[in-house]
């Protein structure tokens, strides 16, 4: 645009989406849904040693109405599922979901009569973290993956969405594949 020619370095032109998403991505407010041992690791990630606030996600909100990133860390039983959904529905749009640990992602070792075998049956999960429990580095990696998703489509050339694996093993799904996963059959 020619406008820079007039005003020089004092002005940057961009789109509103880019600015808003840049702000969103660097100020994610997590809603911790910690129901089991994975939550201990999530707390470790949030506290001083691993310090999630370096990535702008230190404002832990225990009210879903003030948060935009749901971290499901732990086992979800059939009886807990409606609670999780209710809390998720209370979060304002746009919102993102991390499924932390084997239990939240697939039921883990608890292949029993009572445990939901993966919260992605009920919620649109954006990033899965494997591990039992995942190390704090994995959660940080997942947060960075969420930031990528917030900032924009992962790959323009990949409309279907594919699983991307990263160094520590976190899997990121593009929004397109999340949408297909969340729709009941």
């Amino acid at each position: 645009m020619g406008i820079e020619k007039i005003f020089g370095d004092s002005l940057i032109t961009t789109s509103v989406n880019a600015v808003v998403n840049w702000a969103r991505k660097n100020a994610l407010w997590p809603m911790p849904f910690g129901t089991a041992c994975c939550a201990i690791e999530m707390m470790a990630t949030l506290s001083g040693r691993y310090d999630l606030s370096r990535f702008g996600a230190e404002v832990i909100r225990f009210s879903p109405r003030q948060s935009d990133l749901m971290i499901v860390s732990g086992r979800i039983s059939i009886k807990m599922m409606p609670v999780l959904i209710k809390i998720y529905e209370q979060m304002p749009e746009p919102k993102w979901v991390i499924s932390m640990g084997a239990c939240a992602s697939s039921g883990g070792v608890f292949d029993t009569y009572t445990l939901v075998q993966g919260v992605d049956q009920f919620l649109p999960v954006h990033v899965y973290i494997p591990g039992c429990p995942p190390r704090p580095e994995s959660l940080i990696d997942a947060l960075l993956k969420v930031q990528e998703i917030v900032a924009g489509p992962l790959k323009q050339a990949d409309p279907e969405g594919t699983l991307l694996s990263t160094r520590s093993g976190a899997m990121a799904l593009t929004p397109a594949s999340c949408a297909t996963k969340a729709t009941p059959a």
Partner: protein
Amino acid sequence: MTPEEIVQKLVARFGDKVSPSGSPGISRSFAVMDRDHVLPVLSYLKDDPELSFDFLADVTVVDYLRLEDPVVRERFAVVYQLLSLKHNHRFEVKARVPEEDPRAPSVLELWKSALWGEREAFDMYGVEFEGNPDMRRLLMPEDYPGFPLRKDYPLHGRGERDAFPQYRPQPDAPRAADTQASQA
């Protein structure tokens, strides 16, 4: 008193209504009886000054499916774990409950702590306690089909984990992924 002495005392009082059980060295002695005798025996255990079991530690159920216990003989046994805080001794009582009619009398009038124990036993084994005013499920969802701790119940359940459509998102409701403002 040791459990053996308590069993002897019960047999002396109630005769053949009470069968002693338990193997020395493996388990403590306990008493087995038909469910009709539960209330008289347990109130005796509570009120006798030498026994005075003032605390019901737990009510639960054992499923004897394919176990063929010679004393219990029925499919289920309701187990009452008693503790006397006064004398510091413990005792265990089992009541036979047949498979075709899984009912047992509630001991709520003797010990208030039976309320949740009986609810949990009902939740997991489907044994109903007559006289308990609050026979609802305790742990599982109210609309859960089946009784998961019965031995003939499949370990993985019968597909209930996936069969709760009321919790699923409605297809027309906008999802986060659709409304995401990231199409920069």
